[in-house]
C-alpha cells in the first residue's frame, strides 16, 4: 500500500472531485471529503461532506449544495461552532452545533454507516484543528507519513498501516474440491501410479465380455448346429477368461490399497492443517463459533472428504475409464448398434445435472442442521450442573428433539428428490437394454451381426449401465464432499483478525514500557473502549479498577493482542504491537486469569505449558515461588499427578497457584492479572497474594481486581468508566481527590463494615441481587400454596 500525501484522499481526475472544486472559491482548499451513505431519514443515499479552511460544504442526495462558514470575514474561527460525533447500532452521526447563541442550536447533521467512520473521525479532527488557534495547527502532521485510509501515523520504516492491513474481505472461489489439490500435491507420484493401475485393471475387466464373441460364434452356435466342440479352443478361451479375472483382481487390489493409503494421508494432512489454522485465529472467531460446529468440521467433515477420495472419487474415475473404453470397443465391433446402445447416455447425464443442484444445496443444509444437533450437545454437556440445578433436563431434551426434528425434516425433503433418482436410473437401464435387444434382433434378421456380437453387447451394456447407476451415486457423494470441503475451507480461508505482520520486528530485550494512544475498540457495533490514553513505565504495577463492564478485561485482551484495536495503537517499547510476530510478542506476556484452565496432563506439564523445555528444577522453583510446592507434594503422585480439563480434585486456590507458577516459569516482562484472586475466599486469597507478590517483582504488571484491597501494592491506580480512563494516580492521591475511586473505595468499605467481608462494587450488586432472590424465595412457597 503506498501512501499519498494528498489530503482529500481521492485522485484529482475523479469527477466527484471536479464537482467539489467547482463549488469552491479561489484560494479555498479541500481538507477532507467524507462520503456519507445515508440521508437524514436514514435511507441509503449518497451524499458528500467537504471541509475546507473556510467552510463546511455538504451535498445531499438531490445534488444540492449547502455550506456553513467556519470563519468570519477576517479569517478568525467562529466561536461556539462544534462538530459532534457519535454512533449507535452501526450508524454514525456528525452534528454541526452552534453554541454561540443562548441555547445550543443544531445547524445540520449527517449520517453514515460505519464504513465511513474512519474518514468521519478524520474530518472531525481536522475540523477541530481549524477551530483551534492558528499556532496549534499541528506542524508535525505534514512530517509524519499518514495512512491514506485511516489517517493513523504509519510506522517509521513501513508503508503498511497496521490498522488497515487486516480489513481484507476476499470471498473464496466456488470450485472447492479442486482446492484439495493443495493437499494432494505431495502425493502426486503415488496418485499417478494409482491412476495407471486403475487404467490397467479396468482394461483387464473389459476382456471377458469380448471373449464371449468367439465363445458364442465359434463354439456354442456351431455345436447347436451339430458340430463338435473343440476342447483346445474352449480351454484357451476359458483360460483367457480366468487369466483376465485374476489379473483384474491383482491390479484392483494394488490400486485400491495404494489410493486408500494416499487418501488417508491427505485427510490427515487436511485435519492437521485446519486445526493449526484454527489455533492461529483470533479469539473473536472462537467467540462467534460454537464448539460443536468446529469439532464436527475438523472431525467428521475431513473424514467424509477422505472417504470420498479413497472410495467414491476412485470408483468414479474407474467408471469414466470403463465407459470410455467400452464405447471404443463397441464402436469397433458395430458402429450402429454402439450408437443405439449409447443413446440414453446424454439423457441420463442431463438428468444427473438437474438433480445435482437440488442435492448440493440440500446436503449443505443437512450439514448445518447436523452441526446444530451437535451444538446442543456441546452446550448442554459442559453446562450439566446448571441444567440439573435448575431442573431443566426436559427443556434441554426438548431442545435436542427440536434440532433433531429439524434434521429429520431437512433430510426428508432431500430424500424426496434423492429416492426418485436411483430407481429412475434403473428404469432407464432396463429401457436401454430393451432397445439394444430390439435393435440387435432386427440387425440379426438382416444378417448384419452374429449371435456372439449381440451377447457381447448385452454383456458390455450390463456393466455399462451398472456403472452409470453407481456413477449417479457419485453426484451425491461429490456434493457431500464438496460441501464438507467448503466448510473446511471456510476455516482455512478465514484470515485472522490478528494478522501476522509481513515484516515482523524482532523482540530483543523487552523492557515493558507500554503506551496506549487514542485507543478505541468496537465489539460488533458496540464501542467498548474509546479514546483511551495511558502510559505505563517499565516495571510499574498498575491496578485497573472500575465497575464490571467498564472495559478493563477488554483492555487486557487488547494488550495481549487477542483482539486488535479498532482505532489508535498500543505501543510497547516504542513499537506498535501489531508489528511484532504474535507468538513472539505473547511469549513476553504472563497471564493469570480468574478461572485457571488446566489441560489434561500432569501438574508438571501444566506448569511447563508455556515453556515445554523447562527442567524439573525450574518447574519446582516456579511452584515454590507460587506457593504451590507444598500442596503439590501432598498429592499422591506429587508433580506427576494427573489433572483433568477443569482440574478436578484441586481447589480453586490450588489451581490458581498452578497457573501462577505457569506464568512465573516463562519469566514474562509484562504480567497481567485478570481478577486472579476473585474466585477464592479471603484466606486462600492471602496465600495467592503471597505467590503474586513474588510474581510481580520487576515486571510491568497490570492487575484487575474487584477487591481494591488486593491492589495495595500498585504504583498507580487507573480508574475506568464506560471505556474511558477517568482517573489515574496512587491510592492516597485518588482518595484525596474524592472522585470515582474514592466512591468505589467508600462503597467497599461500607460493605466491610456491614458484612465484615471485603466485597467489591460488582460483588455488592451481586449481593443485593442475591438478597432479592432470597426474598422472592421466601414468598414463593406461599404463592405456590395459594395456587
Amino acid at each position: 500500500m503506498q501512501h499519498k500525501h494528498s489530503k482529500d484522499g481521492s485522485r484529482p481526475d475523479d469527477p466527484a472531485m471536479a464537482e467539489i472544486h467547482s463549488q469552491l472559491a479561489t484560494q479555498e482548499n479541500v481538507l477532507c471529503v467524507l462520503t456519507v451513505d445515508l440521508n437524514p431519514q436514514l435511507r441509503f443515499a449518497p451524499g458528500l461532506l467537504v471541509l475546507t479552511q473556510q467552510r463546511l460544504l455538504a451535498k445531499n442526495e438531490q445534488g444540492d449544495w449547502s455550506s456553513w462558514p467556519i470563519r468570519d470575514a477576517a479569517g478568525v474561527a467562529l466561536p461556539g461552532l462544534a462538530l459532534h460525533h457519535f454512533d449507535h447500532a452501526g450508524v454514525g452521526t456528525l452534528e454541526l452545533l452552534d453554541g454561540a447563541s443562548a441555547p445550543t442550536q443544531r445547524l445540520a447533521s449527517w449520517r453514515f454507516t460505519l464504513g465511513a467512520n474512519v474518514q468521519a473521525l478524520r474530518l472531525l479532527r481536522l475540523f477541530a484543528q481549524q477551530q483551534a488557534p492558528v499556532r496549534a495547527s499541528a506542524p508535525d502532521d505534514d512530517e509524519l507519513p499518514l495512512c491514506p485510509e485511516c489517517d493513523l501515523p504509519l510506522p517509521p520504516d513501513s508503508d503498511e498501516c497496521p490498522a488497515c492491513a487486516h480489513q481484507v474481505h476476499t470471498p473464496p472461489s466456488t470450485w472447492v474440491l479442486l482446492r484439495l489439490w493443495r493437499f494432494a500435491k505431495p502425493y502426486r507420484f503415488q496418485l499417478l501410479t494409482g491412476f495407471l493401475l486403475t487404467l490397467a485393471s479396468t482394461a483387464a475387466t473389459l476382456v471377458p465380455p469380448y471373449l464371449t464373441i468367439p465363445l458364442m460364434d465359434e463354439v456354442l452356435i456351431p455345436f447347436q448346429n451339430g458340430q463338435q466342440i473343440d476342447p483346445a479352443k474352449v480351454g484357451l478361451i476359458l483360460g483367457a477368461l480366468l487369466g483376465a479375472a485374476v489379473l483384474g483382481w491383482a491390479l484392483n487390489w494394488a490400486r485400491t490399497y495404494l489410493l486408500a493409503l494416499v487418501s488417508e494421508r491427505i485427510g490427515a494432512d487436511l485435519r492437521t492443517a485446519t486445526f493449526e489454522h484454527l489455533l492461529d485465529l483470533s479469539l473473536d472467531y472462537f467467540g462467534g463459533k460454537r464448539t460443536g460446529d468446529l469439532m464436527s468440521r475438523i472431525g467428521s467433515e475431513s473424514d467424509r472428504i477422505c472417504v470420498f477420495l479413497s472410495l467414491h472419487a476412485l470408483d468414479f474415475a474407474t467408471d469414466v475409464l470403463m465407459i470410455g473404453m467400452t464405447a471404443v470397443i463397441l464402436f469397433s465391433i458395430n458402429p450402429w448398434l454402439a450408437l443405439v446402445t449409447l443413446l440414453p447416455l446424454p439423457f441420463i447425464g442431463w438428468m444427473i445435472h438437474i438433480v445435482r443442484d437440488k442435492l448440493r444445496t440440500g446436503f449443505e443444509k443437512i450439514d448445518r442442521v447436523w452441526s446444530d444437533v451437535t451444538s446442543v450437545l456441546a452446550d448442554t454437556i459442559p453446562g450439566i450442573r446448571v441444567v440439573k440445578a435448575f431442573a431443566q433436563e426436559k427443556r434441554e431434551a426438548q431442545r435436542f428433539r427440536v434440532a433433531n426434528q429439524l434434521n429429520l425434516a431437512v433430510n426428508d425433503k432431500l430424500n424426496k428428490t434423492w429416492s426418485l433418482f436411483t430407481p429412475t436410473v434403473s428404469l432407464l437401464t432396463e429401457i436401454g437394454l430393451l432397445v439394444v435387444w430390439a435393435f440387435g434382433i432386427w440387425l440379426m434378421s438382416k444378417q448384419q451381426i452374429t449371435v456372439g456380437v449381440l451377447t457381447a453387447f448385452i454383456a458390455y451394456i450390463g456393466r455399462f449401465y451398472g456403472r452409470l447407476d453407481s456413477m449417479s451415486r457419485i453426484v451425491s457423494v461429490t456434493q457431500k464432499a464438496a460441501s464438507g470441503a467448503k466448510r473446511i475451507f471456510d476455516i482455512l480461508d478465514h484470515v485472522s483478525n490478528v494478522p501476522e505482520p509481513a515484516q515482523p520486528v524482532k523482540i530483543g530485550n523487552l523492557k515493558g514500557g507500554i503506551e496506549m494512544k487514542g485507543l478505541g475498540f468496537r465489539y460488533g457495533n458496540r464501542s467498548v473502549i474509546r479514546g483511551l490514553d495511558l502510559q505505563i513505565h517499565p516495571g510499574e504495577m498498575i491496578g485497573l479498577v472500575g465497575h464490571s463492564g467498564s472495559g478493563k478485561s477488554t483492555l487486557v485482551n487488547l494488550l495481549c493482542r487477542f483482539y486488535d484495536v479498532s482505532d489508535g495503537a498500543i505501543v510497547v517499547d516504542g513499537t506498535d504491537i501489531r508489528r511484532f510476530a504474535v507468538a513472539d510478542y505473547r511469549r513476553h506476556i504472563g497471564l493469570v486469569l480468574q478461572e485457571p484452565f488446566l489441560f489434561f496432563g500432569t501438574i508438571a506439564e501444566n506448569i511447563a505449558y508455556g515453556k515445554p523445555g523447562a527442567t524439573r528444577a525450574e518447574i519446582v522453583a516456579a511452584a515454590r515461588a507460587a506457593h504451590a510446592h507444598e500442596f503439590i507434594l501432598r498429592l499422591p503422585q506429587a508433580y506427576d499427578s494427573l489433572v483433568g480439563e477443569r482440574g478436578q480434585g484441586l481447589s480453586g486456590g490450588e489451581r490458581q497457584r498452578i497457573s501462577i507458577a505457569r506464568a512465573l516459569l516463562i519469566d514474562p516482562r509484562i504480567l497481567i492479572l485478570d481478577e486472579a484472586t476473585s474466585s477464592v475466599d479471603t484466606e486462600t486469597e492471602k496465600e495467592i497474594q503471597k505467590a503474586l507478590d513474588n510474581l510481580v517483582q520487576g515486571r510491568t504488571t497490570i492487575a484487575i481486581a474487584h477487591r481494591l484491597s488486593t491492589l495495595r501494592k500498585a504504583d498507580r491506580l487507573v480508574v475506568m468508566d464506560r471505556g474511558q480512563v477517568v482517573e489515574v494516580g496512587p491510592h492516597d492521591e485518588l482518595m484525596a481527590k474524592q472522585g470515582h475511586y474514592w466512591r468505589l473505595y467508600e462503597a467497599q468499605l461500607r460493605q466491610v463494615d456491614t458484612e465484615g467481608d471485603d466485597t467489591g462494587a460488582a460483588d455488592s450488586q451481586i449481593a443485593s441481587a442475591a438478597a432479592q432472590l432470597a426474598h422472592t424465595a421466601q414468598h414463593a412457597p406461599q404463592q405456590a400454596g395459594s395456587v
Partner: protein
Amino acid sequence: MTDFNSTPGPDFRLARLASGHLQFTGLDGEVHEGVTPVRAFPLAAPDEGISLVSTDGHELAWIAQLQDLPAAQRALLQEELALRDFVPEIRRLKSVSSFGTPSQWAVETDRGETTFILKGEEDIRRLGHGALLIAGSEGVQYSIADMAALDRGSRRLLERFL
C-alpha cells in the same frame, strides 16, 4: 426495591431542544439533557419496556408500555427511537458474490439499495417464524421479516446460507 408493575404515569417531562437533543425533567425537577431512549426488547417486544438513559449511562425512567404515554411524549420518543432503530429490512437479494463466506451481498431494502459483507453464516440469526436478522460487517443489522415472502430468486440465494 424494583416494582415490576409500576404504572408509568407522566412522572417526567420530555422536550426537544434546539440542539436536537431530548431534555428530560424528572418529578424532582432534575433536568437531564441528551437522554436516549433504549428498547429493552428490540426484537421480541419493541414497544414494551423502554428505558430513558442519561448521557452517563444511568436509567432515569422506565416506560413499561409505549402506548401508556401521552401522545406528544410518545411522538417525541418515537421520533428519537426511529433514528436508533436502524435495521433495514431486506426486500430482495440482488446478488451474492459467493456462497462461501465472506460474501458480498447486494440487496434492496426498505431504505434503499445497498451492499454489505456477510462475514460468516453464523451472522445470520434466526428469530423464528421465518424471520432473520443478518449482521453485516460494518455493524449494521439487516432484517428479513419473512423468508417465505421473498421472491423466488432471493429465496434461492438465501437458502444457500441457511
